[in-house]
């Protein structure tokens, strides 16, 4: 009876919206709007709608000018002068100036522990030299200036007005004003529920065709509404029913429901868009012993992880490259985990390491389905060579907090955690946090390796591709010698969308623009 009343009473279904309006769903709720304060991917994606960048990476992974019109590099490579494109304006109508750029870059450098921090350490001076010109002078050779300014993943060096960017990186900004293709509608925002973006009429796209993050950005629709749907099954049903137009992340187990759905396209963000990773605690026994780390590595097998978590061989990719298999420097040297393990050899290594049965605590996040099955595979692999493993289940927020504890496992510490990282965060030899050898204040695991640090510094300073290729190979080898982290296999993330979004630019993350015509 209730249904009989409700059906006819609905005069018009919600799907009947204006042609230039669309609803999209991200993988997580958008709660924090400051793209420098947080490294959350959902905030990064929000940032790409609202803000613009000085340089952007194209589909081939080369930095291309975006807000910058032209630039000059001194002969010794120690000084850069940049000139901004004419006509750049913020959403509040103010012109984009070099002062805004300098303030934004300084805040980004303070908030980015990887590439931003590295650029800051190499910089002698960053200053405006005119209304639309700024200079960057280096104190040490750094060959990745443009690559750094084109950094794709969190935190991205987005440009915002100086009055906003003057806030410390640890203090959330209170206004969302950028100069990107979409304007954020502050009044519509409900944290964790919905956000609205409208096409910014003052945005002047570049003339070049869109290529990944680079090129012309022509806003696809006039009005974009971000709605949060926490349940993946509901989101898939909503896409099938025409209630939403774009779903950022279709879980592998729900993909069959969309494969034959009428009017819905399912498309990969590219092979190895994400990678499962394993990190050991170098501060505590038993993994403070490199021989135990090597024994553990010898017991792991990527195929087991990928079968347990993804299941579909069409969706996952075995890959042992520490810079991911989409890197131009990809190598799988030393990656024993890409082949079936020789457990007898692993047991022998463990015996030789002097392992005395110390407890290994594997942290297991249960509330993130996309890698909830990874930890049990690790536990089983290590048990199979005789390690004393305890798996501890918790939610992701608890894991993040627990992971920062440096104490032993009996005092609340940990031995192993796994993560699911975007390849954008792993692809850079200097930005990949797992390869940071600067020790105890960096990414949990607290890898301390001066050789690795030196290799990364040399990579950053290198000015030729050949030199970088050679150093990348050395980094790959060093990672597996020291077992700084273990790639557990890649997979392709898939997006689902309807015809409205058929011609969006192809990129490793959702970008809602097309090429200029």
């Amino acid at each position: 009876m209730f249904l009989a009343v409700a059906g006819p009473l609905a005069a018009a279904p919600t799907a009947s919206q204006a042609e230039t309006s669309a609803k999209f769903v991200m993988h997580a709720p958008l709660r924090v709007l400051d793209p420098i304060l947080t490294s959350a991917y959902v905030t990064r994606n929000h940032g790409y709608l609202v803000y613009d960048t000085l340089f952007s990476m194209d589909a081939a992974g080369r930095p291309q000018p975006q807000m910058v019109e032209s630039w000059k590099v001194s002969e010794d490579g120690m000084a850069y002068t940049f000139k901004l494109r004419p006509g750049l304006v913020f959403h509040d109508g103010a012109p984009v100036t070099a002062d805004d750029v300098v303030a934004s870059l300084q805040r980004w450098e303070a908030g980015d522990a990887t590439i931003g921090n590295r650029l800051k350490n190499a910089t002698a001076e960053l200053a405006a030299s005119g209304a639309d010109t700024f200079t960057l002078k280096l104190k040490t050779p750094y060959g990745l200036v443009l690559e750094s300014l084109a950094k794709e993943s969190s935190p991205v060096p987005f440009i915002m007005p100086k009055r906003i960017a003057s806030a410390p990186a640890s203090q959330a900004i209170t206004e969302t004003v950028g100069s990107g293709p979409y304007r954020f509608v502050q009044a519509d925002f409900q944290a964790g529920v919905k956000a609205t973006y409208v096409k910014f009429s003052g945005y002047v796209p570049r003339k070049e065709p869109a290529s990944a993050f680079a090129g012309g950005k022509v806003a696809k629709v006039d009005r974009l509404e971000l709605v949060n749907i926490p349940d993946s099954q509901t989101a898939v049903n909503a896409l099938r029913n025409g209630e939403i137009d774009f779903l950022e992340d279709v879980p592998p187990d729900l993909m069959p429901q969309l494969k034959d759905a009428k009017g819905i396209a399912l498309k990969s963000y590219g092979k190895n868009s994400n990678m499962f990773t394993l990190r050991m605690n170098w501060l505590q026994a038993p993994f403070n012993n490199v021989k135990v780390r090597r024994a553990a590595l010898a017991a792991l097998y990527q195929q087991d992880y990928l079968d347990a978590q993804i299941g579909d061989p069409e969706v996952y990719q075995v890959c042992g490259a520490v810079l991911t298999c989409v890197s131009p420097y990809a190598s799988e040297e030393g990656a024993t985990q890409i082949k079936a393990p020789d457990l007898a050899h692993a047991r022998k290594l463990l015996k030789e390491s002097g392992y005395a049965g110390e407890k290994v605590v594997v942290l297991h996040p249960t509330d993130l389905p996309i890698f909830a099955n990874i930890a049990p595979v690790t536990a089983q692999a290590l048990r199979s060579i005789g390690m004393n493993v305890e798996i501890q289940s918790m939610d992701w927020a608890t894991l993040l907090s627990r992971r920062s504890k440096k104490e032993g496992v009996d005092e609340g510490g940990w031995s192993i955690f796994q993560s699911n990282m975007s390849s954008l965060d792993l692809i850079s030899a200097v930005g990949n946090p797992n390869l940071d050898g600067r020790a105890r204040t960096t990414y949990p695991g607290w890898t301390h390796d001066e050789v690795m640090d030196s290799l990364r510094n040399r990579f950053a300073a290198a000015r030729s591709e050949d030199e970088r290729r050679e150093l990348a190979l050395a980094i790959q080898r060093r990672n597996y010698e020291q077992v700084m982290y273990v790639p557990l296999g890649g997979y392709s993330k898939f997006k689902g969308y309807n015809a409205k979004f058929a011609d969006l630019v192809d990129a490793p993350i959702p970008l809602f623009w097309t090429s200029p015509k």
Partner: protein
Amino acid sequence: MLNLIFKRVLAAIPVMLVVATVVFLLLRLAPGDPARVIAGDMASEQAVAEVRAEMGLDRPLPTQYLLAMGALLKGDLGSSIISKDPVATLIGQRLGPTMALAICAILLTICAAIPLGVFSAWWHKGLFDRITLALTVLAFSVPAFVVGYLLILVFSVKLNWLPVQGYAELASGFGTFLYHMALPTITLATVFVALITRITRGSMLEVLGEDFVRTARAKGVPERYVLYRHALRNAAVPIVTVIGLALTTLISGVVVTETIFNIPGVGRLIVDAVLARDYPVVQGTILFFSFVYVFINLAIDLLYVVLDPRIRY
């Protein structure tokens, strides 16, 4: 009656303070760090420490407690650590969908369960009674998320009659409101229809065996008057008690239904806040629920007087 209201409101104040203290301690002693949640997976320890200091979470626990309680005594529930919005505003934004869902569900429950219970009792041990009992057992046994997904599969995905998800305010039109509310209401009401049908049936069976009912029938009073004027009114006290409890459960326990149908209500607010360790939101929401419990229980007690004139406070 005014005396009762005054006493109950006074008694609620220490209850609220105890609730606030317990929630404060539970949250702070539980693992998890909102600064880490905000800063993200790859933030350095230094960055997390700076965020923590910025949010005042590096202060000693007693200082944080005193600050929170001081604000609470002034009626300030604080602000979200994550979004910076006042907790009262967040609850205000989310209360509408939750109340709408709870009221629709309770109305559907009353409209369905009371007639079912009355007729089951009237046809005691008959076919209708047996079928109703069997259906109530089924409704009790099937979890809300299964009911929700089945309804979505049939009415949204297959028949395309109703939306999969979303919420429309009453201001957008009654038809649109009901169009979005139909499936969540049925999902949420299913278990309560079963519960109140059985309570009504049991209560009616007891009353229908009383002498005054037999006397009414002997006097030739029509059966519908016997059922509704004599029997149901006397059976109403336990039914109203359970409906009141159901309403409190509905307001505070709709998170599964809100999640399945993507309704941005208070249930979702509190679950998201727990996952993000947004302490002020969790604390404020629980305090709000405590207030709702006190208020509804008081309302039920007052309703007893209306239903049964023998009851005096």
